[in-house]
């Protein structure tokens, strides 16, 4: 039997707290899961620094990737299979793309990418297309199969329906992470009736659409997403931890570039500091490696690096205040001067950070608006854009919410010290 059609002698199941069971029958999927690059995702948390706020949020990208695969499998095997609009030949590429869509994520990837100017999507492509175990498994299907999987993830695959199943405003990726993140953080929002949504999903030539009777289930999904972004993903304390993480990496790079002699050679980082790293070195990094360095750097003689690492490891995070860059950017200049005077390097101890989200948007012909909307399929077959039919979704459509904060180490500012009092007054005033 051709490898691409080969089934396991017995179905494998993973016990999963969100989807109950994750079912694997395809040999290819089983072999991909067992590659070193996929197993690496066990060592990368799905929510980065969020575990410092919601202690349950220790779940990994491995779990999420399996979850996205399972949702995709259910969409195809129990929803699309047998329908005229669905091409059964796309099943395996869709399943592999779902499983591998986050393969290139690095440790604390948002912070790491920001500091070293990297793009995890680029690494996903590289892992799929270069000499890796994942590439070797996918190539056994067909020589061009790794490229097909890479194209689906990069949104350049000719079959737009397959692309929309993992990259659209209602896709397998979002449906898994909203439920999984809600489960592990322990919050009560983030839940919606996914079974219902899967039952009302319909394939069309270009994208997946929703049968009109499923509108209320989709409303619930959009509102879950809205709540999760502001209550979990943009939690200011989690952002504070990320701010410190970014500053640790900046400081370590600065010290390396200025010839500082590390007590512990930052072996894993050198190629990144020198911007000459190879894929192998990127894959070698995970969150345990970073956390080990942070532990070691707490004993470095550089006081800034040692302090920042101590803050991250022992959760002595920065305090935050509301900050409006439009009206307060002059005040920021004043604060920079006062921080210098107080012996706090503002480069590391005075940080602004913004969060922004657009919960749902629709496409307006002729003008730049990049989000393909969710369409409801009416009984006569017509498609209607969701916000035109739903008052709930209409109320939040196209409405971006942005939040700016300024982070600083309040524990270093002592009440009664005139300089510190002035700083605190400016920060909180």
């Amino acid at each position, binding site marked *: 039997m051709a490898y691409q059609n080969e089934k396991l002698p017995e179905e494998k199941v993973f016990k999963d707290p969100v989807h109950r069971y994750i079912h694997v029958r395809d040999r290819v999927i089983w072999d991909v899961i067992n590659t070193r690059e996929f197993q690496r995702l066990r060592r990368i948390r799905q929510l980065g620094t969020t575990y410092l706020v919601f202690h349950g949020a220790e779940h990994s990208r491995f779990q999420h990737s399996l979850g996205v695969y399972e949702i995709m499998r259910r969409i195809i095997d129990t929803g699309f299979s047998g329908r005229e609009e669905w091409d059964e030949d796309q099943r395996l590429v869709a399943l592999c793309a779902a499983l591998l869509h986050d393969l290139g994520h690095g440790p604390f990837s948002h912070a790491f990418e920001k500091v070293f100017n990297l793009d995890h999507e680029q690494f996903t492509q590289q892992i799929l297309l270069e000499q890796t175990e994942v590439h070797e498994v996918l190539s056994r299907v067909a020589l061009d199969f790794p490229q097909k999987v890479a194209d689906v993830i990069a949104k350049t695959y000719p079959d737009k329906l397959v692309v929309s199943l993992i990259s659209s405003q209602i896709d397998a990726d979002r449906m898994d992470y909203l439920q999984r993140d809600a489960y592990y953080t322990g919050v009560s929002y983030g839940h919606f009736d996914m079974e219902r949504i899967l039952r009302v999903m319909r394939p069309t030539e270009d994208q997946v659409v929703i049968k009109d009777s499923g509108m209320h289930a989709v409303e619930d999904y959009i509102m879950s997403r809205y709540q999760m972004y502001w209550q979990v993903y943009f939690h200011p304390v989690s952002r504070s931890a990320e701010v410190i993480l970014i500053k640790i990496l900046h400081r370590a790079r600065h010290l390396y570039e200025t010839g500082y002699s590390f007590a512990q050679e930052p072996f894993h980082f050198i190629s990144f500091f020198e911007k000459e790293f190879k894929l192998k070195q990127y894959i070698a990094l995970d969150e345990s490696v970073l956390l080990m360095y942070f532990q070691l750097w707490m004993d470095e003689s550089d006081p800034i690096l040692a302090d920042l690492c101590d803050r991250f490891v022992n959760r002595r995070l920065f305090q935050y205040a509301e900050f409006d860059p439009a009206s307060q950017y002059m005040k920021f200049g004043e604060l920079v001067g006062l921080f210098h005077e107080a012996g706090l390097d503002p480069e590391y101890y005075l940080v602004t950070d913004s969060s922004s989200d657009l919960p749902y948007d629709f496409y307006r012909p002729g003008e730049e608006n*990049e989000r393909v909307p969710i369409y409801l399929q009416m009984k006569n077959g017509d498609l209607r854009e969701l916000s035109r039919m739903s008052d709930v979704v209409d109320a939040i459509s196209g409405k*971006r919410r942005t939040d700016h904060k300024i982070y600083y180490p309040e524990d270093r500012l002592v009440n009664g010290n005139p300089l510190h009092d002035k700083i605190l007054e400016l920060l909180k005033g």
Partner: protein
Amino acid sequence: MLLQEHAKIVQFVSLACEVNGRKKMQKMVYILKKMNFPFVEKYELHMYGPYSEELTLRVEELCEMGFLAERFEDKGSYKQYCYQVTDEGSMFLNTAEEPRTQLSDCIERLNSKSSRFLELVSTLLFFDQLDKEQQIAKVRIVKNKLNFTEQEMDQAFEFIEELQLVSAG
């Protein structure tokens, strides 16, 4: 410096005098980034080609801050947002670093082109790690509904070469 990246966008609009259309703005900044001008906004491939949510956000913030003015124009078959620098924005620009001299020249060339053409150029550049034939094949897949002609493809490649020369100084 605080708002350093915001300042680069204000500087870009200032050098363009006016940018007509969000799509045009997106594509111009992407192409300039590909010409090694120091824009940091992260781009992904979307419906109209390379698109940056970060740039959208930055422009919205700049409008809220009063540094950019957004004007809505109803063109009948489509609607368009146009951007100019305000007086406050010009003052804010004093805090920005001087741009490379070639930036102005590149912006002028880009601003004279249509959004459709810039969409083609930016999408080709998105696939610039591929060889020319593969780049064209990719554009034909992701932009299958736009039916770009051979002539447009040739013009786009010529334009990219021209920009590379200008930006290199």
